[in-house]
Structures are given as structure tokens and as C-alpha cells.
């Protein structure tokens, strides 16, 4: 049976977010397998302009859902409006971003639609002639291939995994306007608080030395600073756990919920390399990983893998460096 692939447009402050283009790319990959039509859905108080932009850019048929009560994102509204729009479908894939929005409403929408829900999709593959979705499990030490057992599947697509293609010159698609009234809400949006933390320190550094839970003790941060001091234009950063523990400030955090960095050199020290962290640093030019666990996922994204305890390796490295300096190279 022909399926429809729906792309839920993610947008913020009047702009279509770049991840939406990755969703379309992912939908096009799915289309190659299923032969289905791709449609886009956009929810907003004033969706017309962005709906037109989506239809023109990608040549897609777009449903513009106008909801006067919607200011920004609201999980309850997304769930109920999308459930209304999709309820009558026999079969469908729904592609939304594995973002703070998609992760929030996708599981609830799946319950509402009796659908399968697969979050954090990194790849599409076929296993025994059936379409499956790959997602990382166990701190990215393994990958699960998950098969939907329902005719409707809600997918949240991991940003950064489907490189957006340039849209071909497309015949502009049509826009269908729908209106929804969402009153008596249990969830009231009260606006966005902008980030207070200034992350320019790490986003502008040429070299980042980054610490993870493998640091073991706050006192070992000294080693990270010593290593960073060998480089010019360097900065010290950390994984979320290190910031949660209070060892570093949150403005030093690299990853999905922190900064996305792409320095010339990224040295990951004692970082396990779960997806949430890898997403923030995988576009670095050159990646060195130091971890005593040979199975650490960070080694999958590294150029140089060093299986050592950082507490003894970093001092050893600094010693070798200093010796070559005093020997005049």
C-alpha cells in the first residue's frame, strides 16, 4: 500500500529551522524505498508565509494549520492538531526532528494515533525486505534496528544525520489552509527565556580540550587546563555530566543541549561519546580521543584513538612535549 510521508516543519521566530531540510532529505530517502508521496505540515498562528516557502523550495504539498492560540511551540496543541490531521490515515510515516519539540510531542502523538514511535533515528535501512530505522543504544556502544509494527509510524530524526540536499528546481507545491481552535488548554506557553550563558569562549576556540566523566575527580581538571595551555587559541570544555557535577560551568558544555563546535582540533578526554555529545563536536576538523574504555563510542567519531587513562596519559604527553621543547625540538 502506498504510504504518505509527512514532514512536520520545525520553525522558530518566523524562520524555517535548518533541521526541517534534513527532515525532507530523510523523507526523500524513505520515498525511494516506499514510493510514497511527501507532504509537509506547518503549525502556527500565521503559517501562510512559511507554508508558501516550503511549497516553493521543495515542491511539496503543504498543509498550513492556522491556530490562533499558538505562540511558538505548545506540546498539547501539536499533539491534538496533528492527531486531528492524521487520524484518518491508514498508513503513514511522520518525520519530525529529534529536537526539544519533536521529542516532546512525538511519543504523545503516537499514543493518540495508536502508532509506532521511534525516536533518535540516525539511518534508514532494509532488514529482510522491511523498512527499519537505526538508532543508538547503550551510550552509542550499539545500534538497534527498529521495525515499526504499526501502519502509522512517528519518527524523530536525529539532527545532523541526513545531510540536506540542495532542493532541485521544483514545481511549486500547493498549500492547503486549515484552521483549528484550541481552547481550554491545560498547557499555557509563557514565552522563551533566552540563554544567559555566553558560549563564544568555546565556539571561537581553534583547539578544544574537553573533559568527560572519565575525569573521575574535579581535581583532575587541572590536567585538562595544563593540556589546553600547550595550544594557542585553546579552550576547555566538557560533556553534560561534567557540568551537571558542577566541575565546569554550563557555558562550557558541548553537545545537543550545549554548544555545537567545529574547531581545528578537538581532544576528548574521558568522554564516552554518547550521541548527545557527539552531535556537538563531530564536525571538528581533527578529533583525538583519550579513553581507558576501548569500547567507548567516542572512538567511532575520532581520527586518533588512544586507549589510556587520561590521568597518566596527559602528564606523560606534557612531559614528552616539554622534553622536545627543551631539546630544541
Amino acid at each position, binding site marked *: 500500500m502506498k504510504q504518505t510521508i509527512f514532514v512536520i516543519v520545525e520553525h522558530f521566530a518566523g524562520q524555517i529551522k535548518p533541521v526541517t531540510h534534513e527532515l525532507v532529505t530523510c523523507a526523500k530517502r524513505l520515498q525511494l524505498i516506499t514510493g510514497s508521496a511527501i507532504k509537509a505540515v506547518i503549525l502556527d498562528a500565521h503559517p501562510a508565509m512559511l507554508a508558501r516557502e516550503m511549497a516553493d523550495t521543495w515542491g511539496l504539498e503543504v498543509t498550513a494549520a492556522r491556530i490562533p492560540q499558538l505562540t511558538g511551540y505548545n506540546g498539547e496543541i501539536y499533539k491534538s492538531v496533528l492527531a486531528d490531521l492524521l487520524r484518518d490515515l491508514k498508513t503513514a510515516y511522520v518525520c519530525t526532528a529529534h*529536537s526539544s519539540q519533536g521529542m516532546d510531542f512525538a*511519543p504523545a502523538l503516537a499514543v493518540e494515533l495508536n502508532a509506532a514511535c521511534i*525516536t533518535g533515528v540516525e539511518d534508514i535501512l532494509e532488514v529482510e525486505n522491511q523498512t527499519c530505522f537505526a538508532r543508538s543504544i547503550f*551510550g552509542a556502544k550499539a545500534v538497534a534496528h527498529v*521495525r515499526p509494527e504499526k501502519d502509522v509510524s512517528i519518527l524523530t530524526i536525529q539532527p545532523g544525520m541526513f545531510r540536506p540536499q540542495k532542493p532541485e528546481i521544483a514545481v511549486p507545491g500547493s498549500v492547503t489552509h486549515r484552521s483549528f481552535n484550541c481552547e481550554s488548554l491545560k498547557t499555557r506557553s509563557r514565552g522563551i527565556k533566552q*540563554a544567559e550563558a555566553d558560549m563564544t569562549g568555546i565556539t571561537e576556540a581553534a583547539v578544544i580540550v574537553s573533559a568527560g566523566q572519565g575525569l573521575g575527580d574535579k581535581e583532575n581538571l587541572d590536567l585538562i587546563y595544563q593540556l589546553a595551555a600547550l595550544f594557542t587559541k585553546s579552550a576547555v570544555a566538557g560533556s553534560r555530566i561534567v557540568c551537571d557535577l558542577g566541575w565546569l560551568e554550563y557555558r562550557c558544555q558541548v553537545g545537543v543541549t550545549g554548544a555545537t563546535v567545529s574547531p581545528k582540533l578537538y581532544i576528548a578526554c574521558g568522554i564516552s561519546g554518547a550521541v548527545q555529545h557527539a552531535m556537538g563536536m563531530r564536525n571538528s576538523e581533527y578529533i583525538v580521543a583519550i579513553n581507558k574504555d576501548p569500547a567507548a563510542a567516542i572512538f567511532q567519531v575520532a581520527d586518533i584513538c588512544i586507549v589510556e587513562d587520561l590521568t597518566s596519559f596527559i602528564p606523560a604527553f606534557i612531559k614528552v612535549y616539554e622534553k622536545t621543547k627543551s631539546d630544541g625540538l
Partner: protein
Amino acid sequence: MKILVCIKQVCESESPIQIDDHGRWIQTDVITGYQMNRLDEFAVEEAVLLKEAYPGSSIDAISIGPERSAEVIKRAIGMGADHGVHMLTESEGYLNPFTIASGIADYARDKHYTLILTGVMSEDQMQGQVGPMIAACLSLPWATAVIRQQMAPDTKSVFVEREIEGGSRDTLQLQLPAVLTIQSGINTPRYPSLSNLLRANKQKLETFQAGDSTQPQLRENVVRVAYPEKSRSGTVLTGTQHEKATRLLSMLREKALLQ
């Protein structure tokens, strides 16, 4: 205030992960140990902080899993939960998030909880589905990745800030009862106290078989498990520590990354 906190037992993050011979799941016998999902610790702590702020409150801690999961329920009691609920499963394998969520929702349905809390996701499966699914099953409002909450019992609502991209925060007011998934860093989870742990060991958990008659139909299934592919060359340096350090130094100098 009545709070339900949903917790999961996961394998230690340092534990080796080996895929079984059939490539269907991981080998459970090589796992070195289990612990409470680190992200759920923040949910338990937030529940205990609320109980301290609102005297007369009570906390139920619930987990679904095999017998060994009782350990994390006891830990939650050690941290300050009053009552432990264990929905016992036979299987060591993959548990579908909808199965877990509908099991918890069934348990919670008639119990008049003011708040249902859980961690933002589990460290092992990293799906982040159970919280919003419980909310949908019970038709409750929800918020995910909550980094701050402020109860407003007078208006029967809770103000929350949820973490969104780039460290910004989305602020919401939810009508109670509500489901919150708690982001790490919202608080500093305490260690279980000795007196609470003694209580946890004496106290009987409410234990029953999970979903024997009402087992929901599987909505998705893990058909294969594989090791990840490398996205870069991943040259592994070999030799003694000194040799590795020397090699790294010369590689960094070749690339003009270090003088």
C-alpha cells in the same frame, strides 16, 4: 501532594556491551553491574525536594523490570520516597516504551497523583518516550526536559522551564495534575541516607506481575542489534604510553596543530 516518580534500572555506563550470537539483543551475562538511571536520580531528588517544601506530601517510586530492579526502588526509598512499587517482568530483553508507559498509567489512573515525574530519558535506550506517553495515556498535560519547576498550589498549576536548543528555556504553566520529565542539572541528587536504607530493607515493596492480561500489542520491535560503524579513520595508537604520547605529538606537529 501525592507524587509518583518513575525510575529505571540500567547497566553501569562503564559496563562492556556485547551483542548476542543472533544479533538480536545484547548479552546480559557480561554486564558488570546495574544502577539507577542517572537521569532518574534528578527526578527522585526533585520529588524529595517537593516533599520537604510541602509537608504531608508522599512519594511513590515505581519501576518496571526483572527482579533485580527492586534495588533501584529501594535506592529511591533510601533517597526519601515513601513507598515502592515494582511491576515485575520475566524478560531481560527489550521492553517497549509504550508497554512501560501504559503499565505505569494503569497503575496511576485511580491514585490521584498531583505530579508524575521521571528522568528525561534512560541512559541505555535513550528514547525519552515514557513520560509524554504516560501523559497521553492519562490525558494529562506534560513538559519534557524540565530544568526548573515552581508549584502554584493555589491555582492548581505548576510553572516550568524546559530546556530547548542552545541553552534557552521555554516557559510554561501546566494545570495539575501533570507529568514532568526532569532534565539533569536541575538539582544535586542526594545519596540515600542510612536510616532510609534501613527502612527500605524492612519495608515491603508492592510487587505484581506486569501486564499479564492487558499486554498491549507491540508497536515497534528491535529486529537486530549491531556495533556502530566508524565515521572516521580512527587510527588506534599502539605501544607503551610513552610511545603513544610521542606519536601523538608528532602527528599534531605534522598537522601544524602544535608547535
